[in-house]
């Protein structure tokens, strides 16, 4: 049975590769077709959020006691917001992907996985663009003398972090897309959930490190080690903490496998239930 499953997944993948490319490029083109700033929004979105949070936590209220001291807060926020935006945009794209492509789902047959996959791929493009701006930001803070930038060999570990994050996004995205097809409430739940999730993932505010129940609950969140790993590898030049990161990896792979198999199993019902 697992062999059959793996084979069908592989064949679906190879058959859908061209299609995945086309749908992704459609998503990207359509998103920026009627906008003045176009692809610049990939940078502007996390950048403006960074400005907002920087203003809130360093000007509007004095939160210096919980904020990191070893790097400028703007940098701290940006390096969390970029991967988070990738995750959030991918997931919320996935949720709606089947329903938004209703006319394709009911009129043409091809592996339905391409819908959530193309959403994740489209947000990956934005992620790459936003990440490259990070270099500029680091140089800026280095020049201003507030902080010393350096190129660390641990940068090589970043692709692994991205892979883990993508696995988690796809797994959750498939589950959410499928659930949303049967119950449209899921989309609303995911929208609210992502907002809340951001504040317990160490994106803009550090996770409290004490041994309280809340802290222990938060540490179950796989996005905490993932976001932390980006900062470790890019800014601090150290490998992520082994145990939490391993936990996030295993959990992400598990969710991916469950999500994908479930999605496959249910996909024959999509056309009539949509």
């Amino acid at each position, binding site marked *: 049975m697992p062999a059959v499953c793996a084979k069908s997944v592989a064949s679906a993948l190879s058959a859908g590769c061209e299609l995945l490319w*086309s749908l992704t490029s459609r998503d990207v083109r359509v998103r920026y077709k009627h906008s003045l700033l176009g692809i610049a929004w990939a940078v502007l979105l996390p950048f403006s959020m960074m400005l907002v949070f920087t203003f809130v936590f360093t000007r509007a209220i004095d939160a210096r006691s919980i904020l990191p001291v070893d790097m400028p807060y703007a940098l701290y926020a940006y390096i969390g917001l970029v991967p988070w935006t990738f995750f959030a945009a991918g997931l919320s794209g996935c949720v709606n992907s089947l329903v938004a492509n209703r006319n394709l789902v009911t*009129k043409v047959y091809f592996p339905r996985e391409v819908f959530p996959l193309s959403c994740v791929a489209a947000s990956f493009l934005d992620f790459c663009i936003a990440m490259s701006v990070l270099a500029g930001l680091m140089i800026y803070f280095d020049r201003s003398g507030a902080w010393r930038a350096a190129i660390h060999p641990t940068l090589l570990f970043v692709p692994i972090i991205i892979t883990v994050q993508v696995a988690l996004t796809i797994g959750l995205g498939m589950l959410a897309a499928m659930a949303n097809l049967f*119950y449209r409430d899921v989309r609303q739940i995911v929208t609210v959930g992502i907002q809340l999730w951001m504040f317990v993932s160490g994106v803009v505010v550090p996770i409290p490190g004490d041994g309280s129940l809340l802290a222990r609950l938060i540490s179950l969140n796989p996005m905490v080690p993932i976001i932390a790993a980006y900062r470790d590898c890019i800014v601090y030049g150290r490998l992520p903490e082994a145990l939490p990161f391993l936990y996030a990896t295993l959990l992400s792979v598990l969710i991916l496998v469950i999500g994908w198999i479930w999605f496959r199993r249910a996909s024959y019902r999509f056309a009539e239930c949509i």
Partner: protein
Amino acid sequence: MSHPAVEFLQVSKRFRLGENHGSLRDLVVAGARRILGGARRDEEGTFLAVDSVDFRVGSGEAVGIIGPNGAGKSTVLKLLSRILRPDSGAVRVHGRLAGLIEVGAGFHGDLTGRENIFLNGAILGMSRREIRRKFDDIVAFAGLESFLDMPVKRYSSGMYARLGFSVASHVDADVLLVDEVLSVGDAVFRLRCLDRMRRLVRGGTTLIFVTHDLEQMQSICTRTIVLSSGRVAYEGPPGDAVGHYLSAVSRTHCDRTTDLATSGHQVGSAEVFSVRFCDLSGNHLSWIAPRSSVVMDVQLRLSRFIANCILEVNLRSPSGHAVLSLNSGRDGVRFDCDTGVQHLRLRINDLPLSGGQYFWNVRAWDADTGACELDTPFRYPMVINENGRASGMISVEREWSLNSDETVGEAGLGRTLPSQIAVAPTQSDDAACEPCSAEA
């Protein structure tokens, strides 16, 4: 038939009538009800869209699927293209399948024609290299060279359909499914599409063609399946299929008007159960050949005895024109009508109507009192099948000739000249296209 390209084996597909759970609240309610009401298979609230349909299509064959609305044609195509999965039975397609279930499904309005060709091509299973190779052909066939960089949302529906058909028909498919897509587009483009499909079939592609256009179907298909209420009503030569199709269409029409009829139109003591047509030896006919003699069999029931009953049947064309009115009183025939079920049999010789659907009604009067005892709406269908050879309202026996002789009349036609061509009454010919057979 060579080895089958498509096997559709005893396939059934059931759909729910009600909504699926639209929101989580409904799920909770339905779940609670299921727990309280015990587990129950929800057979009720569903209908069989496709009911043990079984057919095979040979490689390189062109098969038409026709049937009234709701007969299950599109469901069959969706089952073939794996969009839907059958509840029982098996669907096997050998080779690459391309489906034109809807022209331009997957076009995105904001993208240009050029971008949409690549997108739609990929959706239909072509690689980018393949699309690039065929790009010029696709554009030329659609005739949209000057609109390639315009977003398709500004295309007219005809342009949209042309582009959609063009992309889909350039997929190198072994099996091509075409569903009612040529209804858009002008006559010229439709002809080009038919031509294109014919060429694909000649090149070995298997074609399954769903349409309501009987002429198109007959001009392409070599075999036709008539679906009616989810079942195969007929399978065979396209010409005969048309007759079965028309009778299936009029039957659904009849079913739909029944409720309406029984409520308000019960004017007197009589009612009609059925109106059927038989040939002279009593075999039931689902359709009638032009100028043949038929017996109309009206099954009536009277709730009281009528000593002097006049019966009348009237015929209307589908457009509502009165075609024929036959009144037994005018013909000097009155009936002693007993209570209970009676059969009124009316023989009509050489019915001279041309092909199409017609509708009868039945009336009855008590000649003594003048009271109307029965007046049904026009809901009893009769199908004349002429294989599309004549139009107009009547069908006549005919002979054609062309020569230099100035004599007109029996003498001129009577001589059997070499150029004379006679048309036999169209009973059951197999060649459906040409309206003439040469006579030496």
